[in-house]
Each structure stands twice: as C-alpha cells, then as structure tokens.
C-alpha cells in the first residue's frame, strides 16, 4: 500500500502534515507523536525577527471551533535555524517552514536566511487575519498576491507553497494569481475572521477583538475552496480546515488535495495526526486501494 505523495518534487511518506501554529516547532508534540511518522511537520510562522504577538486572551472556544489571535508570536528565523530545524531533522521529520512578515522585505529576508537550511518546503503565510500587517493584505488582493509570490519565488531555494486566506470573494482568482507568479504549490485554508462577545462582561472575548476561526466548524467552507482551487490550477494543494478524523482528511483528498494538514484537532487530541494517518490506512485497506493517489481528486 502506498501512502506517499509528492508536493513540488518533495516526497512525503504520507499525506498528513500539521497546521502551522498548532503544532509549535514539533518539539512539544514529540512526547505524543513520532515526528518522523508524519508526512511533514509544518512549523509555526517565523519572521525575520522575534515577534511578541498580541495581548491575551488570545483564544476563545466557539461552537465546533475556536478563535485565535496569537498574532504570530515567534522567536525569529535565527532561533528557528539554531534550535528548531536541527531538532526536527534529528527527529527525522520532513519540514515545512511557515514564513510570515509585515513587508515584502521581511518575507524575503526569512526566505534568504533559510536558503541553505534543511527546510524541505517553505509555506508563505499571506493570510493571517490577526496582525494588521501580518500579510492578510497580500492574501486578499490577487495583484498583491501575485507580486509577493513572484518576489518570494525569485529568492527561495526551496519550493514555495503560498497559503491562501478564505476571507475572499473568489478563491479561484487568488489561486490563479499565485500559480501564475510561480508558486510551486498552494495551501488552504487559513482561518476565517470571526468574533466572540462575552455577554456577561459586555466585552470582546479576545483582546484583539477579532480572531481566526478554525476547527471542524469551518470544514465545509475549506472543502469547497479546495475543490474550487483544485479544479482551477495545476499545482498541488495542501488542504486544511477542520480536520479531526481520517474521514475529514479523505474529504479533502477526494476534493483534490495532494496532502492535508491537521490543525486545531491537535488541541483536542495530541495524537490526532497519528490517528488520521492510521484511519486513512484502514480506509484504504477496507476499500482495497493500493495507492493513495487513486483517491486524490476522485470526486469531480
């Protein structure tokens, strides 16, 4: 049985990676998960310099989901290079480094610093709704997305994955822009912008007022967008948004995703990634499927 897939020339031993920001640098979850058993570990977004993030409270639970406004707190690319990448490589993980920035220059600086590093793929987050200059502006305008993709692609030594925001009228336009500018792959969806009000305190639950909605609540939107994008572009897509179980992951794969990421589910069960992989295997056994690639995009 083959579970291996390929994203922009990089082989993943199975199609399951982690949602950036939900799995730390991998180290925290390594108590529960053998990192080398995952298709890849996608790290928390990293900028050129350390970012302190937003004030707390940064998370709120919602019905079937959660809001976060962590605001891309991160130690900067130097610490990532010194501490996290060696750890991940030591652990045998395939690594997707998620990159964030405020300006195009920030992104380019990170990408450049990573050029000689053991990062297998770079995921470019232009869709974080929680930081005013956290890239969302790039992610909501096809022209801006085209420009930044082009600039990053020109500098990057590793294949790049542009991560799209679902907070747009037409996700296909965005996907086309990123593809046209040379992105090697796409990932989607990032979080939907949401808000929760504490009616007892009559105040916002998040210090940042708004946050990004993730978790199973958003899965139908994510599957729809992945389907739309896969019907529009030729580059591979990593699908995510609300995957709790193997069944959820298979929806994305059948909609066309070459790989999937498990995000919020890690908070509900630190072993979620492993269970998703096991579940995909047993689905394939049950249905006599030799190669996971038979399932990719099988629903049209």
């Amino acid at each position: 049985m083959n579970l291996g897939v390929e994203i922009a020339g990089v082989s993943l031993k199975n199609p399951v990676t982690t949602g950036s920001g939900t799995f730390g640098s991998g180290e925290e979850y390594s108590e529960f998960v053998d990192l080398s058993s995952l298709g890849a570990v996608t790290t928390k977004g990293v900028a050129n310099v350390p970012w302190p993030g937003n004030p707390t409270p940064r998370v709120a639970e919602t019905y079937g989901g959660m809001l976060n406004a962590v605001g891309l707190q991160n130690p900067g690319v130097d610490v990532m290079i010194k501490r996290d990448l060696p750890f991940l490589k030591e652990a045998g993980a395939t690594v997707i480094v998620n990159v964030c920035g405020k300006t195009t220059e920030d992104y380019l600086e990170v990408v450049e610093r990573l050029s000689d590093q053991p990062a297998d793929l770079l995921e470019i987050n232009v869709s974080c709704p929680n930081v005013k200059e956290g890239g969302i502006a790039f992610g909501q305008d096809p022209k801006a997305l085209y420009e930044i993709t082009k600039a990053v692609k020109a500098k990057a030594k590793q294949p790049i994955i542009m991560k799209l925001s679902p907070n747009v009228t037409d996700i296909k336009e965005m996907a086309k822009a990123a593809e046209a500018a040379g992105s090697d792959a796409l990932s989607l969806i990032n979080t939907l912008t949401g808000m929760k009000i504490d009616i007892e305190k009559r105040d916002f639950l998040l210090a940042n007022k708004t946050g990004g909605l993730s978790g199973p609540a958003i899965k139908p939107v994510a599957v729809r967008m992945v389907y739309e994008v896969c019907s529009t572009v030729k580059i591979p897509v990593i699908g995510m948004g609300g995957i709790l179980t193997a069944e959820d992951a298979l929806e994305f794969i059948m909609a066309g995703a070459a790989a999937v990421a498990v995000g919020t589910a890690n908070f509900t069960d630190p072993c979620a990634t492993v269970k998703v992989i096991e579940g995909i295997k047993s689905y394939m056994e049950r249905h006599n499927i030799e190669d996971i690639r038979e399932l990719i995009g099988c629903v049209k």
Partner: protein
Amino acid sequence: MGKQNIKAEILSQKKLSADIFDMTLNVGDMAREAVPGQFVSVYVNDGSKLLPRPVSICGIDREQGTIRLVYRIAGRGTELLSTYEAGTRINVLGPLGNGFTMKKEKAILIGGGIGIPPMLELAKQLGCEKNIVLGYRDQDTFLKEEFEPYGDVYVSTEDGSVGTKGNVIDAVREQAVQGAVIYACGPTPMLKGVKAYAAEMGLEAQISLEERMACGIGACLACVCKSKEVDGHTHVHNKRVCKDGPVFDAKEVEL
C-alpha cells in the same frame, strides 16, 4: 514518562456546595508523575466543545493511581462535567505545567476562591511549618476543614461572614500571619495583592496564574503572561502559563 493522554474513569463525583464539585479520577501512572501545583486538561464529552478545561490537581493518591479535582461551575463545560456520574470516562491530558517548588522555610499558603483546591495537595506534601490563608466570598468555606490537619488556617470572606472581612492579604495582616515563602493561587487581583505584599515584606512568593488555553502543552502560544526575563521559547517577554508555569516567582511576572 512525562505527560499522558488517557481516557480516565470518574470514580466519584460529589457536590461540595452550590456550584463547587469534587471529582476523583482513575488516572493510573499519571498520578505517580504529578506534583502539587500542576494541572490537567479535562475534555468534556460534547462535540461542540473542542478545547480542554484546565483544572488544577487538588489531591494525588499515588498508590491508588487517582487524582482529585475540585472545580466550580463557570460555564457550559464545567456544568456538563458536573453531570457525569461515577463510571463515566473522560479524556484527560496531564500532568501539565511545572508545579510549586517546595522549600524548607516556613510557608504561607494562600488560596482564593477556586484557587484553593491546588493548595490542599501542597499543604499535604510540604514538609515544613505552614500557615494557611483561605479567601472565600461568603460562609461557603469549601475544603476548609481538610486544611486544618496541616497547619493554622486563617479565613477571609468578602462579606465578613467568616474570619476577616476582606481579602486574603487583609487576613494576613490582621492575623500577622508569619512565614518566609508564600505559595498562592487565586484570581489575578488577589495575586497582585500577594505580589505587592511579598515585595513589601521581602518574601519569596510563588504564584499560580490562569490564562485561556488551547493546547495546554506549550505549542500554541495562547496562554502567555508578561515576564521580566526573556522567555526561553520566543525570546521576547512572554512566558507560557501552561508550560513555563502555571507557577511563577511573583517577581518574574507582570500582572
């Protein structure tokens, strides 16, 4: 061995007072790992709720492999939890966080409201002389008797119905409670008071903080507090309550 993610059986569930419940869980080895001041992430059996409820460990029985949680109904999650009868199995992740550093010097244990439960196991395990100060809203002085074997117990109540009228620091001052190290858990305004008092008296204070959490294990960066030193993770000034805490040296954090 470290943290575990298990399905634990509820061995008993009791109502302590109007909105306070007392639950014992069969957690096996997790009990043998746990130390006072640590907490567990409790998952409720309802699909609409994905995030865990962090609850401090109030009692540890290493031999039986059980832990005790005492919690207040604060919303739908804890309300649901309180409806589960003995025999129900729930997911529990733990033990989490650092716990108190147990010193030899004479101790003042301070618990306020739903910050009282974690002080009980600390009172049991701390080998030294102890004064215990408990702050309540009113005459519902849950767990008070259980502290009495371990030291002198002083009480403050907001409405003055029992002990000192006011907060725990009012009680400490009124009763001239003595000690070299303060261990405290309670609401943030109380912890501010403890921090100020400790600074004033030149005492060490270990305080246990609360923050909204998601992962509970240091990965998501939801639960940070402002720290004086740069933190080990991000190298800014944000320590993670779930991993670097929940117990901090009062001098270390801004409240």
